[in-house]
């Protein structure tokens, strides 16, 4: 053999110009055990040729030593082991031989193929050590005699899939943290912990959150958790926060050389700082720093993964923060509720006591013929004083509600603050003197007047002085005025009992009363200091307090001078100097009543001295005996006077004490026959007094009648529990009191005998009591009855129907219930029955009533009933039910809009509303409206009446979660919506009142709705994340020409499924096309899908052909539990001539729409789904996709509908495909998805792949006339593939040629060589062609340039339509002609 001959043979054996081909040609084969290539078997030669000409990494292992032959594409995978031509395999891959050696052996021995999946190889192919994964498949190579002599290995790059799946798992793990954190920092730590499990993708992470809404960032957590703060880089965090966009740090190695590497060989060099987005597109709530693994390029895919991590993290933090806010709001509401209750309790006391004292004397006055009499003027004084007190209280409350509503009308005039304050203080002087205190008034003139609203200022000073006097028993009270800097400072200092340190923070809190050990009066509503604070704030000033228990208290008011701090429209000129204001009198009068000397009252802490009765003393029993002695304990001097007078005139021997402690001492000294005591008293209150008496055997038997302003069963039970014998609620009548006193004195004597009877009596008296005659008429009631229903004894008898029954026409069911309760009556076995009733003032109540039939002596049958008010319990139950029902609706909601609709329906039913509107106000753009209950078309924002719109706008600007009701029967509230604000408006039924209970209920429900919307929104976001990933896995980002694909997840519940499509460019220029459908949904199906898709790809790349690919997939799928029964349509298409071979594993047939309008189904090559019968032979079918025909592959979700045969769906799909044959492939795919979609969206997910043959032509060439011939050649080819008639093809060729020539000659006359683009696409009946250049044509001028005109004439004559679109960036010629069929 000559040298030349040998080289020639070698070129034949090792074809190609690559490095490995060259090395193999030069290899001294004869010196190796493999021998000269000329002696090689045909099988080995073929394998080597395939290997060397393939662009995919491949290896041939040959002979007993598995000598190693490989191609150029494999070189990077070999790293430093290259070159290794024909070395024994064990030497080449010694480090992993323990893994691959046995695999290769098994192939050699059994002749069965095997593979190893996803081997990690750190490769340095792009200038850095890269994390890459490879799947090796090992197939046997046979010698000419059929024996297995070697192994053929194809290698596929699975890096993207492996990392994609890992990232998917990381994001799922992150998503699974939802709902675990209770505050933002905890959420941050959960994020870090989750990322710690994803160190391969995020080797280092740091979460920074904004501190309390400021720009201050706080490091909340790092991953790994033990990262030392000193190792943290100096990030540009503020930049990220300010601009709300990610910043990539590329010099991480310099900034933080010691960062953890996440398991990779090198520490990270790059990191991305991403803003954590706020809930509703507001400012970022923080920044997350995510280092990128040094093993991967920070490319677009990596960026998008990190962006998803940031988005999930933000969602977690936001959710935690929302939870925290809701929690806090709930606590605040509860606190408010408690404060309200306390307030109303106090205020009722405050109203009732003066009322009793007005009503009592008036009653007496009325009973005298001339209305005056001896005590007349004195009693009128009492009335006057108490009227003043009541007036002051009411005024204070009114001030408060004005401030609250922002309606306080201030008038700031320049005032000499020192003079005015001194004058106000002077008013108090006599009271302070009487109290035996030193009063210092030190008001030095200020350099300039201070702007004040006089009326407000009076209240400030008077309240502070009144407060000081109330709590100071010895020492002094001091008032001073000073200028300090730009402020006027007023101080009111006392040497009183002081305030405990723990109470200081709540000193100015509304309705909060400091429970002090001692004061001059137990009276007070707890709003004086709160009002002072509000009033001072209206002046732009501030108030503070310092106090020490037992030493005193100092209040400091600071007022700014000048006018800058006040609204200009409220400024007024100096007014007339005024005298002592009228407002002062009630304060002073009240203060004087606290003091012992005030009206000659003997009591206070002094010994109670008996007062001899003026009338005949009341005596027990009939015979002569000692007068009955009654001790009165009450802190209110008027009340003491009144009771003393009343009981004295009834013949009792009366003494009195001003507080509980004094009363206790008095009782111990001299036990009275009866103690009448107020409940609320300083030092020792009524209940404590009773407890003290009962605790001492010597006083345990003293009968006690408690008087209290606190209405309600609980209060009376409390009193009776403490051991009181009876309980009288203010206001009471004189007769009532006398009757009770008498009864208690009698009872005390009879106690041992009648204890049980007494208990029964009191029990019934505490509840509403009624007697019904045999006609059903109510003939007798008690005070509690009147309290509860508003119907007093003056209206007796109340015949059927009782006026408290709910209206029969409007509330038939409630009416029936009440009728049954009050007349059907009496089944004692039932116990108390709950029924709705209507109070005299119209409001709805619920009472639990019990009735008993009794036989009267005359033989008449009467019914005695008692009931109590259970409205609170009833409404609480109703609230719980409604909240639970709403929660269920929200949990079922599939999306935010759905949740809103569900809530609207419930609101409508609950309030029997005419209509309920929900208007979402987005951050920007038109509000959207959802409605329930209105017939006709759903309203839109622009169709709502202007008045409604205005009210909704007002609602929107108001505070969140605050229920409001408007006259005209509407109620509204706003809640947070994930996209902005949601305003709800309820149009109530006719005359339906909207009470406090309704407001509470609406607030609760709206709060729950807000939470529900938030949760639903989060679920939506998670789903979107999963979908993004699914789409990312699906790819491919670059489709071959002529294809369009779609993936549509199922409607609701939306979950990503296991459907996929794929196109694979095969080395020989053909295309693998695949559509498959894994059983199931969710992450598992998506994972299986990913594996099958990769495997299918790899198999097609080995040029296995469709049937063999599916057979190999059968074996593969048998190994994966959830891959069983996957259906696949697998084809290999030659885009040059449209030839298609395909096989189907139980998949619906492909559809072919031909240009003549007929439809063909690709129903050959069919067999069972994957892994059903592994190892069985699969058939293969072939067909040719004719020119201008459209091929559609799909998954069954596209065509399968309930209660409809699959074939019907396929026929329908064929029809839609045929009708779209004039659309572009992309347009066609869109049209198919839209037209086949069921009304509520696809029930199953859908993958779709559409191809039209031939693929459109798209050529870009330099503007040079030399290009004309090759371009024409390519076009001629393409037209041939379109199978056009010859003359038509020639016409198109000439027209296109003219357009190209024009583009070259005119478009680029001044810039030769720039690009011209020719595109052509054919549909069934039409052909469209466009030529684009980047120059601008001048309009043709006939005569000057006749040739140019001729070109256009030709184009217009040869094509049906020609348009020339000159543009700034270039000129486009569009041509279009019909292709004869």
């Amino acid at each position: 053999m000559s040298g030349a001959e040998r080289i020639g043979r070698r070129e034949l054996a090792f074809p190609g110009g690559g490095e490995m081909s060259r090395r193999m040609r030069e290899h001294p084969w004869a010196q190796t055990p493999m021998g000269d290539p000329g002696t090689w078997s045909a099988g080995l030669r073929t394998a080597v040729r395939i290997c060397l000409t393939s662009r995919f990494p491949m290896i041939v292992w040959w002979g007993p030593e598995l000598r190693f032959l490989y191609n150029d594409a494999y070189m990077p995978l070999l790293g430093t082991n290259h070159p290794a031509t024909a070395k024994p395999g064990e030497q080449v891959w010694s480090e992993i031989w323990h893994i691959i050696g046995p695999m290769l052996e098994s192939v050699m021995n059994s002749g069965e193929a095997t593979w190893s999946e996803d081997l990690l190889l750190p490769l340095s192919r792009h200038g850095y050590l890269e994390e890459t994964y490879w799947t090796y498949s090992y197939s046997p190579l046979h010698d000419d005699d059929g024996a297995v002599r070697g192994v053929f290995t194809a290698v596929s790059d699975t890096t993207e899939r492996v990392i994609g799946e890992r990232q998917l798992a990381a994001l799922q793990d992150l998503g699974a943290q939802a709902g675990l954190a209770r505050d933002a920092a905890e959420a941050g730590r959960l994020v870090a912990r989750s990322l710690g499990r994803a160190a391969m993708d995020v080797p280092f992470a740091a979460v920074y959150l904004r501190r309390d809404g400021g720009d201050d960032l706080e490091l909340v957590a790092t991953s790994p958790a033990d990262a030392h703060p000193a190792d943290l880089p100096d990030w540009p965090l503020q930049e990220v926060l300010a601009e709300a966009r990610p910043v990539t740090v590329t010099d991480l190695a310099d900034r933080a050389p010691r960062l953890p590497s996440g398991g990779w060989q090198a520490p990270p060099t790059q990191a991305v700082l991403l803003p954590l987005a706020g809930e509703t597109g507001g400012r970022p709530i923080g920044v997350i720093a995510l280092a990128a693994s040094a093993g991967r390029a920070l490319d677009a895919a990596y960026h998008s993964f990190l962006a998803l991590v940031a988005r999930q993290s933000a969602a977690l933090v936001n959710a935690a923060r929302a939870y925290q806010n809701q929690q806090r709001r709930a606590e605040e509401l509860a606190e408010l509720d408690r404060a309200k209750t306390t307030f109303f309790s106090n205020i009722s006391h405050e109203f009732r006591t003066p009322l009793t004292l007005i009503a009592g004397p008036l009653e007496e006055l009325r009973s005298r013929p001339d209305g005056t009499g001896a005590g007349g003027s004195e009693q009128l004084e009492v009335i006057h004083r108490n009227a003043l007190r009541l007036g002051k209280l009411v005024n204070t409350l009114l001030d408060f509600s004005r401030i609250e509503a922002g309606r306080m009308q201030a008038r700031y005039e320049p005032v000499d603050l020192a003079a005015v304050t001194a004058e106000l203080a002077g008013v108090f002087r006599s009271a302070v003197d009487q109290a035996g205190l030193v009063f210092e008034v030190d008001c030095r003139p200020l350099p300039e007047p201070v702007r004040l609203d006089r009326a407000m200022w009076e209240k400030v000073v008077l309240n502070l002085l009144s407060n000081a006097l109330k709590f100071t028993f010895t020492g002094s009270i001091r008032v001073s005025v000073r200028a300090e800097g730009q402020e006027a400072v007023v101080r009111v200092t006392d040497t009183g009992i002081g305030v405990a340190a723990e109470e200081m923070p709540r000193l100015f809190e509304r309705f909060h009363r400091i429970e002090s050990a001692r004061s001059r009066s137990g009276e007070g509503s707890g709003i004086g200091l709160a009002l002072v604070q509000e009033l001072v704030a209206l002046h732009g000033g501030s108030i503070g307090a310092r106090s020490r228990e037992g030493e005193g208290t100092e209040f400091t008011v600071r007022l700014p001078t000048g006018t800058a701090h006040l609204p200009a429209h409220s400024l007024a000129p100096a007014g007339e100097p005024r005298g002592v204001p009228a407002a002062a009198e009630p304060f002073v009068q009240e203060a004087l009543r606290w003091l012992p000397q005030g009206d000659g009252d003997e009591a206070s802490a002094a010994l109670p001295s008996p007062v001899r009765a003026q009338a005949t003393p009341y005596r027990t029993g009939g015979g002569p005996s000692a007068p009955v002695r009654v001790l009165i304990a009450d802190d209110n001097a008027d009340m003491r006077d009144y009771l003393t007078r009343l009981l004295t005139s009834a013949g009792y021997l009366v003494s009195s004490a001003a507080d509980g402690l004094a009363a206790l001492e008095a009782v111990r000294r001299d036990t009275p026959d009866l103690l009448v005591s107020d409940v609320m008293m300083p030092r020792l209150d009524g209940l404590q007094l009773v407890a003290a008496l009962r605790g001492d055997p010597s006083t345990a038997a003293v009968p006690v009648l408690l008087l209290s302003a606190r209405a309600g069963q609980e209060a009376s039970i409390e009193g009776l529990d403490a051991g009181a014998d009876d309980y009288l609620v203010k206001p009471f009548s004189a007769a009532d009191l006398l009757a009770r006193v008498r009864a208690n004195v009698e009872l005390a004597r009879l106690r041992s005998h009648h204890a049980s009877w007494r208990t029964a009596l009191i029990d019934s008296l505490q509840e509403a009591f009624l007697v019904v005659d045999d006609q059903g008429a109510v003939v007798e009631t008690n005070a509690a009855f009147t309290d509860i229903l508003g119907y007093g004894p003056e209206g007796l008898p109340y015949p059927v129907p009782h006026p408290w029954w709910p209206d029969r026409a409007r509330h038939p069911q409630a009416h029936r219930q009440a009728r049954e309760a009050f007349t059907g009556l009496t089944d004692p076995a039932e116990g108390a029955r709950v029924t709705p009733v209507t109070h005299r003032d119209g409001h709805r109540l619920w009472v639990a009533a019990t009735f008993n039939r009794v036989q009267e002596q005359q033989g008449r049958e009467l019914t005695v009933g008692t009931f109590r008010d259970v409205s609170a319990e009833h409404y609480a139950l109703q609230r719980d039910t409604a909240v639970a029902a709403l929660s269920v609706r929200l949990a079922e909601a599939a999306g935010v809009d759905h949740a809103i609709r569900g809530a609207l329906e419930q609101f409508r039913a609950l309030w029997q509303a005419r209509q309920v509107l929900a208007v979402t106000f987005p951050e920007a753009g038109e509000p959207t409206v959802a409605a329930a209950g209105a017939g006709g078309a759903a309203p839109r924002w622009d169709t709502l009446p202007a008045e409604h719109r205005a009210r909704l706008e007002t609602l929107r600007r108001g505070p969140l979660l605050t229920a409001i009701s408007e006259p005209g029967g509407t109620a509204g509230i706003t809640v947070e919506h994930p996209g902005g604000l949601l305003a709800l408006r309820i149009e109530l039924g006719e005359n339906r009142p909207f009470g406090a209970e309704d407001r509470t209920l609406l607030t609760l429900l709206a709060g729950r709705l807000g939470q529900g919307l938030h949760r639903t929104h989060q679920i939506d976001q998670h789903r979107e994340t999963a979908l993004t990933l699914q789409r990312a896995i699906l790819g491919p980002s670059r489709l071959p020409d002529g294809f369009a694909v779609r993936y549509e997840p199922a409607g609701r519940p939306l979950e990503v499924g296991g459907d996929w499509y794929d196109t694979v460019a095969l080395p020989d220029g053909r295309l693998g096309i695949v559509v498959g459908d894994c059983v199931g949904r969710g992450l598992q199906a998506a994972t299986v899908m990913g594996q099958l898709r990769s495997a299918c790809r790899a198999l097609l790349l080995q040029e296995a052909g469709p049937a063999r690919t599916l057979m190999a997939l059968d074996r593969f799928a048998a190994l994966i539990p959830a891959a069983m029964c996957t259906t696949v349509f697998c084809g290999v298409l030659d885009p040059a001539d449209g030839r298609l071979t395909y096989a189907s594993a139980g998949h619906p047939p492909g559809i072919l729409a031909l240009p003549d309008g007929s439809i063909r189904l690709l129903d050959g090559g069919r067999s069972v789904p994957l892994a059903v019968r592994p190892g069985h032979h699969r058939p293969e079918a072939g067909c040719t996709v004719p020119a201008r025909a459209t091929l559609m592959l799909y998954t069954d979700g596209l065509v399968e509908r309930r209660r409809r045969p699959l074939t019907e769906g396929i026929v329908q799909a064929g029809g839609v495909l045929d009708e779209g044959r004039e659309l572009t492939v992309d347009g066609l795919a869109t049209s198919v998805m839209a037209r086949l979609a069921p009304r509520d969206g696809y029930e199953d997910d859908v993958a779709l792949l559409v191809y039209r043959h031939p693929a459109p032509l798209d050529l870009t060439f330099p503007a040079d006339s030399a290009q004309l011939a090759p371009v024409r050649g390519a076009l001629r080819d393409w037209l041939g593939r379109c199978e056009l008639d010859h003359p038509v093809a020639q016409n198109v060729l000439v027209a296109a040629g003219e357009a190209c020539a024009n583009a070259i000659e005119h478009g680029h006359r001044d810039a030769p060589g720039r690009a011209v683009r020719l595109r052509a696409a054919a549909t069934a009946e039409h052909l469209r062609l466009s030529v684009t250049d980047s120059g601008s044509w001048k309009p043709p001028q006939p005569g000057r340039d006749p040739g140019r005109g001729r070109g256009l004439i030709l184009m217009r004559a040869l094509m049906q339509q020609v348009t020339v679109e000159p543009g700034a960036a270039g000129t486009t010629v569009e041509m279009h002609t019909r292709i004869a069929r």
Partner: protein
Amino acid sequence: MKTPLALTTAGRPDGTAVVTAVGEIDLSNVDAFTAALTTALAGSRTVVVDLTAVEYLDSAGLNVLFSHAPRVEVVASALLGPVLAISGLAELTTVRGADGGPLAG
């Protein structure tokens, strides 16, 4: 690279020059076509342009024929018929088919 085009000029017994083109005529090689025609016209009153073997003729080539229309006679295959007819050249000069008959256009 210019589009392949072979041009030969021959004389008929009657002295009429015949320019025969084989290939395609477009913007890239129209200069050669022009030169051949101009040279032939310099020595002959009329010139027969034989385009029978021309598969493609664009407006650049037509322009050359137009500018010498009164003195040229065109012979072409049916393939060029539509172009020659649409451009109006057939109205200015004689256009014949390869068989000597009128060209279907």
